[in-house]
C-alpha cells in the first residue's frame, strides 16, 4: 500500500494563478450550464464532464482513465465573456492602483526608493526561513510610500485617487471603472516595478487579480447525490457554477449582438455578483445567494471557514478509531494506574497482535473460547478480524471461525479484544494540561461505565455527576512502550508546574486516615487485622501499643499506618489540624505535631498535611525520593487503609453538626450588636464631619475601610465563638480541620453568621437613589443597609439579607464564567506560541528554526517535576538527615 515518494520538495511558492496556468491545468473547457442528459449521462463540456473526474461507479475518467474512488478529479475552466474582479483581492487592487500611475503604469516612487525596497525583498527571498519580517510587510511599506506621492516621479503627471466601493466597484472621481479598465491599468505596470509591490514577476502578475478565466473544481469535490426518489441533487458549488455559466452565456450573446450598453453592464454586474458569491457567500455589502428553498448556499469560503470548516473540523481535528466514550464512576479498589472498562466497550476496541510461535496457541484458544465458551460468565477476549500475510482482512464469524482457527499461523495479525493489562490512553476535556490525558492499564468490568480511582479526579478535574471520558487504544508496540513509560498515571503524580504531587489522597481518604490515627485511637486484634488486610499486608503484626488493655491487646492507628512507611523515613512537621494561634508547646500537648522516626509514626495524626495532593508531606517525600512506583503503591495502599478505617469508625455529618448552644448564639448576637454600634459611631462621626481621612484616601474611602474592618472582625469573632463549641468530636469539624473538605469559615457561616456581602470588593452600594433597597433610609451608611448579613445559613436570612447575598453570589458566578473563557483563550495563544519549542540535549531551548530561545532551560536546567517545589535540593531535609534531627 505504501507508495514511494519520487521527489523531495525543496520549496513551495504561493502565488496567484494566471489565465495561462488555469487553462494549462484545465482538463476541459466548460460551456454548457447543464449537467446530465436525459439518460443521466454527463454532458460533454458540461459541469459534470467526464474529463473532470467521475462520481459514478462503472464510469472511467476521460483524463486519467481511473475509476471512481481512485480518481481525485481534474480541474476544468470557464472562459469569461468579460473580465471580473476577484473579490478577495479588491483591496490589494485598490492599493496598487493608488500606488501606480494610470498612464505610465509606473510605481510612483523614485528609482532610488524602488531599488532600496527591491534590495530588501531580494535579500529576504535569498535567505532561509526563520525570520519575522515578511515580503508582504516590506511591499506594503513601499505601497504606502508611493500612495503618499502627489504626482508620478517618472512622468510628472498628477495622480487621481481611486476609491473602492466594497466589495468590487472601483471609482475614480465618482466615475465607475470597469474591470476591463482596471485590468488594462494593472497590465501596464512594468515587471521592473513588481518586486516592490510584492509580486515575483517570474511567477505572477497583478492583473491576475482580475479574472478572465475561471477555474472549475473537479467533480469529486462537488459530487451530486441521488435522492431516494431517484432525483438528482447537485452540490451548492455546482449550482453556483451553473449561475455563472448561464449569465456568462447571456452576456456574451448580448455583447456580440450589440445590445445596449445598459443591458450589457447589468449582465456584467450580475456575472460579477455570481462569481463573488461563488468564492464567498458572506461577502459584506452584497446579498447572500440562496438555494430555491431559501437556504444560503455553502460556497468555497464557507467550506473552509470557522469551527465546522475544513481546517478546524477536518484537518486540525479528526474522528479516530479505537476509541470509546462513556460516563465515569468511582472505584476505590482500582489502582490509580488502572481504568475499569465495560465488557461492551472492550469487545469493540481491539489491539493488533502479530502471531508468532509463542502466542499462536493462546490466540487459537481465544478464538475457540469466543465461539464455544466454556464459561459464559467469564470475560475472555475474542478476535474480530484477522489480517492474512497478504494483507486481506477476514472477519471471524460463526461460519468461518473453525476454518480460520486452523489456518492461523505466524505472520498473521489478529485484532484482539481488550483484556486486563492492556495499556490505553484516558482523557477528559477540556484537555488543559498534560495530566488531562494519561495512560491507564485496563481492567475489564461488568457494567457500562468507565471506572477510575478517586485520586486521579483532581488532575482530570473530574467528578461523577455525569462526567464522560474518552479512551483510546494505542495500536503499535512503540506507542504502547511510550505510553507506559511516559504517560502512565504514576509518572504524573508529581506536577511539572510546581514540583509537588498533584495526585494524592482526597476527601474520605483524609477523614479516614485522621480517624484511624488521631489521638489515642486504638484497635483490637480483629479490627487491626481487618484494616491491615486491606493493604495486603504480609508479615508479623507490630508489637501492640497497649498490650494490657481490657479485652486483649490493642494497636494504635499510628502503628497500623506505619506499616506503609519506608524504614528510613524521618520527618517532623505540623499536622493540618495544628492550631496556628497557639504555641508549639500547646499544639504538641494536643498531638498536633507529626513525628516519624525510622519509618515509625511516633506522634501526631495523619491528615491532609501528610497524604493529600499539593501539601502531603509523606506523599511528597516518598514520590520525590523513592520514585513513581513507590508513590503509586503508597497512594493505593493509604487510600485502601483509609477506606478500611472508615468502615471501622464511620463518619457522618448533617445540619446538627452546625448546632451551637443558645449561649454561644447569644454571644454572637451581642458581638454583632456591638459591631453595628461601632459602625454607627463611625457613620455619625462622618456625618458630623469629624472623620479624619487616612493618608492617600478620601474621607469616604477611609470610612468604608474602617467599616469593612469592623465587620470583618465581627465575622471572625462569631466564627471563633462558634468554633469554641464545635470540637473535634464533630465530623464536620474533623473534615474541615484535617483538610478533607470544607473550611472552618464554611462552618461558622452555617452556625454563626454569614458576614458582609461584597460586589466589586466593596460593600453593596448600588440599587436605588442613595440607598440599596427601599427598606432603608436614603443615605444610610449603616451595616444592615449595605449588605451585612447577621444571620447564619442555618437560621435563615431576612429578605433584605437574602437579596444582598444573591447580589454577591451573582457576582461570583459571572466572574467564573468570564474568567474561564478569557483564561482559556489566553492559554490557547500561549500554547500556540510555545508549542514547538524544545529542550535540546545541550539544555538550550530552541525553536524549529533552531534559534535559541533560552540559553539554559529554566535558566537553572532543573526539571521542576523532580524538584522540591521548584528547588533542586531540599536543603532543610538534607541538614535534618545529616545532623540527625537534633
Amino acid at each position, binding site marked *: 500500500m505504501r507508495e514511494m515518494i519520487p521527489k523531495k520538495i525543496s520549496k513551495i511558492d504561493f502565488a496567484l494563478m494566471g489565465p495561462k496556468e488555469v487553462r494549462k491545468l484545465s482538463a476541459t473547457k466548460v460551456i454548457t450550464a447543464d449537467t446530465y442528459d436525459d439518460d443521466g449521462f454527463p454532458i460533454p463540456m458540461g459541469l459534470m464532464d467526464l474529463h473532470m473526474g467521475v462520481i459514478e461507479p462503472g464510469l472511467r475518467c476521460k483524463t486519467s482513465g481511473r475509476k471512481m474512488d481512485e480518481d481525485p478529479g481534474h480541474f476544468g475552466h470557464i472562459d469569461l465573456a468579460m473580465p471580473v474582479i476577484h473579490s478577495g483581492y479588491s483591496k490589494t487592487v485598490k492599493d496598487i492602483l493608488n500606488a501606480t500611475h494610470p498612464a505610465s503604469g509606473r510605481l510612483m516612487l523614485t528609482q532610488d526608493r524602488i531599488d532600496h525596497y527591491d534590495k530588501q525583498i531580494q535579500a529576504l527571498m535569498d535567505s532561509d526561513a526563520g525570520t519575522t*519580517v515578511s515580503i508582504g510587510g516590506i511591499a506594503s511599506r513601499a505601497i504606502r510610500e508611493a500612495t503618499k506621492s502627489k504626482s508620478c516621479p517618472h512622468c510628472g503627471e498628477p495622480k487621481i485617487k481611486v476609491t473602492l466601493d466594497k466589495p468590487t466597484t472601483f471609482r475614480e472621481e465618482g466615475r465607475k471603472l470597469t474591470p476591463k479598465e482596471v485590468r488594462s491599468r494593472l497590465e501596464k505596470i512594468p515587471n521592473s516595478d513588481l518586486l516592490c509591490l510584492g509580486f515575483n514577476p517570474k511567477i505572477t502578475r497583478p492583473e491576475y487579480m482580475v479574472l478572465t478565466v475561471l477555474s472549475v473544481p473537479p467533480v469529486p469535490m462537488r459530487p451530486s447525490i441521488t435522492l431516494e426518489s431517484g432525483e438528482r441533487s447537485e452540490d451548492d458549488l455546482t449550482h453556483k457554477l451553473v449561475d455563472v455559466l448561464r449569465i456568462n452565456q447571456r452576456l456574451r450573446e448580448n455583447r456580440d449582438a450589440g445590445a445596449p450598453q445598459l443591458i450589457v453592464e447589468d449582465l456584467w454586474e450580475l456575472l460579477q455578483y455570481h462569481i463573488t458569491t461563488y468564492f464567498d457567500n458572506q461577502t459584506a455589502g452584497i446579498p447572500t445567494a440562496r438555494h430555491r428553498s431559501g437556504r444560503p448556499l455553502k460556497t468555497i469560503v464557507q467550506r473552509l471557514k470557522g469551527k465546522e470548516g475544513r481546517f478546524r473540523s477536518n484537518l486540525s481535528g479528526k474522528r479516530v478509531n479505537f476509541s470509546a466514550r462513556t460516563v465515569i464512576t468511582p472505584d476505590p479498589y482500582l489502582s490509580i494506574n488502572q481504568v475499569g472498562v465495560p465488557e461492551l466497550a472492550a469487545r469493540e476496541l481491539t489491539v493488533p497482535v502479530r502471531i508468532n510461535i509463542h502466542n499462536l496457541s493462546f490466540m487459537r484458544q481465544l478464538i475457540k473460547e469466543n465461539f464455544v465458551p466454556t464459561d459464559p460468565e467469564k470475560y475472555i477476549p475474542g478476535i474480530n478480524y484477522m489480517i492474512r500475510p497478504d494483507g486481506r482482512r477476514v472477519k471471524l464469524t460463526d461460519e468461518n471461525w473453525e476454518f480460520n482457527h486452523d489456518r492461523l499461523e505466524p505472520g498473521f495479525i489478529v485484532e484482539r479484544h481488550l483484556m486486563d493489562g492492556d495499556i490505553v490512553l484516558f482523557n477528559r476535556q477540556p484537555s488543559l494540561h498534560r495530566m488531562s490525558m494519561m495512560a491507564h492499564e485496563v481492567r475489564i468490568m461488568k457494567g457500562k461505565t468507565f471506572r477510575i480511582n478517586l485520586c486521579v479526579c483532581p488532575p482530570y478535574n473530574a467528578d461523577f455527576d455525569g462526567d464522560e471520558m474518552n479512551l483510546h487504544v494505542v495500536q503499535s508496540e512503540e506507542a504502547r512502550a511510550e505510553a507506559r513509560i511516559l504517560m502512565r498515571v504514576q509518572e504524573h503524580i508529581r506536577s511539572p508546574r510546581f514540583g509537588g504531587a498533584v495526585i494524592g489522597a482526597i476527601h474520605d481518604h483524609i477523614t479516614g486516615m485522621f480517624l484511624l490515627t488521631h489521638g489515642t485511637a486504638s484497635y483490637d486484634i480483629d479490627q487491626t487485622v481487618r484494616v491491615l488486610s486491606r493493604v495486603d499486608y504480609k508479615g508479623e503484626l507490630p508489637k501492640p501499643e497497649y498490650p494490657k488493655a481490657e479485652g486483649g491487646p490493642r494497636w494504635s492507628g499510628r502503628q497500623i499506618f506505619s506499616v506503609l512507611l519506608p524504614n528510613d523515613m524521618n520527618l517532623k512537621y505540623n499536622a493540618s489540624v495544628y492550631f496556628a494561634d497557639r504555641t508549639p508547646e500547646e499544639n504538641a500537648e494536643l498531638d498536633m505535631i507529626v513525628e516519624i522516626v525510622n519509618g515509625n509514626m511516633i506522634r501526631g495524626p495523619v491528615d491532609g498535611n501528610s497524604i493529600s495532593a499539593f501539601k502531603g508531606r509523606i506523599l511528597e517525600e516518598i514520590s520525590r525520593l523513592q520514585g513513581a512506583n513507590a508513590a503509586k503503591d503508597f497512594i493505593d495502599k493509604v487510600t485502601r487503609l483509609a477506606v478500611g478505617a472508615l468502615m471501622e469508625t464511620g463518619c457522618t455529618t448533617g445540619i446538627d453538626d452546625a448546632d451551637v448552644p443558645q449561649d454561644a448564639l447569644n454571644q454572637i448576637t451581642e458581638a454583632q450588636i456591638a459591631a453595628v454600634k461601632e459602625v454607627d459611631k463611625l457613620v455619625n462621626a462622618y456625618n458630623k464631619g469629624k472623620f479624619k481621612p487616612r493618608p492617600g484616601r478620601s474621607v469616604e474611602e477611609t470610612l468604608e475601610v474602617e467599616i469593612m474592618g469592623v465587620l470583618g472582625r465581627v465575622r471572625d469573632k462569631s466564627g471563633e465563638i462558634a468554633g469554641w463549641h464545635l470540637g473535634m468530636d464533630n465530623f464536620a469539624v474533623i473534615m474541615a480541620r484535617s483538610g478533607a473538605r470544607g473550611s472552618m469559615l464554611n462552618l461558622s457561616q452555617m452556625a454563626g453568621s454569614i458576614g458582609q456581602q461584597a460586589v466589586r470588593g466593596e460593600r453593596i452600594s448600588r440599587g436605588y437613589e442613595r440607598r440599596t433597597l427601599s427598606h432603608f433610609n436614603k443615605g444610610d451608611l449603616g451595616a444592615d443597609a449595605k449588605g451585612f448579613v447577621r444571620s447564619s445559613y442555618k437560621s435563615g436570612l431576612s429578605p433584605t439579607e437574602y437579596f444582598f447575598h444573591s447580589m454577591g453570589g451573582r457576582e461570583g458566578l459571572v466572574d467564573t464564567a468570564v474568567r474561564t473563557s478569557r483564561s482559556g483563550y489566553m492559554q490557547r495563544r500561549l500554547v500556540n506560541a510555545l508549542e514547538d519549542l524544545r529542550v535540546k540535549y*545541550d539544555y*538550550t531551548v*530552541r525553536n524549529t528554526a*533552531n*534559534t*535559541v*530561545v533560552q*540559553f*539554559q532551560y*529554566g*535558566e*537553572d536546567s*532543573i526539571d521542576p517535576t523532580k524538584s522540591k517545589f*521548584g528547588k533542586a535540593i531540599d536543603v532543610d531535609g538534607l541538614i535534618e538527615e545529616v545532623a540527625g534531627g537534633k
Partner: protein
Amino acid sequence: MNDNILWLNKLVPKHVLLKESEIDGKLTPLNITREQLPKILLKDPALKALDEEAKQNDVVEVHRFSESAGSNIAYRRVVEE
C-alpha cells in the same frame, strides 16, 4: 557601564557589547552559531545607552536577574530591523 539614567532602572539588565575577538570564545563552547542567537534591534535603547557604538551583526552579552538561578547570561545579535 556608564551613568546613563537607563541603567538605574532595576528592570533593565546589564548589557555588554562583545569585541569581535571575544565572540567566538563565548559562543563556540555553547555550540551556538551567531545566526541562532536571539536578536536585538539596533535602535534598542539599551544599545544606544552603551559607551561603544553597536553595529549590525555585533553580539551583546546580557546579564539578567533570574528568579530560578540568581543570574543568567544571554547573548543577542544586533540587527537593523
